[in-house]
C-alpha cells in the first residue's frame, strides 16, 4: 500500500525530511512495523525509530498508538512529545 509520511520538529531536523511517499511491503501494516522499517535505514533513523526514543504517531491527524493498523492512502506523522501552550 501507499502512504504519506510526515516528520515534525526535532525528528524532521534529524532525518532531514519533512514529508515522503512510501510504498509499504505487504507485511508492514502497523505503526510499529513502519517504525522498524524506517529504523533499517541506518544511523539517525535507527536511533529515532528502534524504540530508544519516544516518537509519537498520528494517522490522518489523530494521535494513535504503535499498534494501530495502517491503511492505503493514510497520512502518517511522526513527532516528539508535544510542547505547546
Amino acid at each position, binding site marked *: 500500500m501507499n502512504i504519506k509520511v*510526515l516528520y*515534525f*520538529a*526535532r525528528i524532521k531536523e534529524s532525518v532531514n525530511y519533512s514529508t515522503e511517499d512510501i510504498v509499504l511491503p505487504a507485511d508492514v501494516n502497523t505503526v510499529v512495523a513502519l517504525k522498524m522499517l524506517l529504523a533499517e535505514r541506518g544511523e539517525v533513523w535507527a536511533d529515532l525509530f528502534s524504540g530508544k526514543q519516544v516518537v509519537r504517531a*498520528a494517522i490522518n*491527524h*489523530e*494521535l494513535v498508538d504503535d499498534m494501530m493498523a495502517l491503511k492505503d492512502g493514510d497520512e502518517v*506523522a511522526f*513527532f*516528539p*512529545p*508535544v*510542547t*505547546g*501552550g
Partner: protein
Amino acid sequence: MTVRVQTEDFDVGAELAAMRLASKDIGALVNFVGQVRDMNDGDVVSTLTLEHYPCMTERSLESIEVEAKSRWNIVDSLIIHRVGKLQPLDQIVLVAVTSAHRGEAFKACEFIMDYLKTRAPFWKKEATADGERWVEAKISDDDAQGRWANAIDKPVSDK
C-alpha cells in the same frame, strides 16, 4: 466553541468581552493566558519559535473543546494559539471558558490547558546564547493531563 491558530497576536480584552457578553446566562468567565518567559532551564531565551502540524492542530484543539463541553456544563470555549517566532513577554495562548457558575469554568479551562499541553501538535524551539534547541516535554504535563482520566466531575462550587 472556537479554535484559532495564527501567527498574529490577539487582543485578550476584546476576546473576553465578546465571550462574556454573548449570553445573559453567563455568570463566570475563566481564562488562561500563556506568555513567553525569558528563562527556561536556567538559560536566557531570546526567541521562541513554535512549529505545528496544520490541520491536526485545529482538529485536536476542537476535539479537546468537545471533550470539555461533554464533561462540564459550560456555555462556550475559545482557544487561540500562536505559531511562528515569538519573543519574551509575547502572548502564546489564550484559553477561555464561560459558564453559569464558576466551578465548571475553572475545571474546563484547566482541563483544556492540560490536554492541549500533551495532545496538541505544537513544538517549541528556543534560541539561547548557546544556539537553538528544541524544548523537551515535561513529565509534569503528562501528570497534569493524567489526573483528568480519573476525575469525578462533581462540581463542588457555584458562582
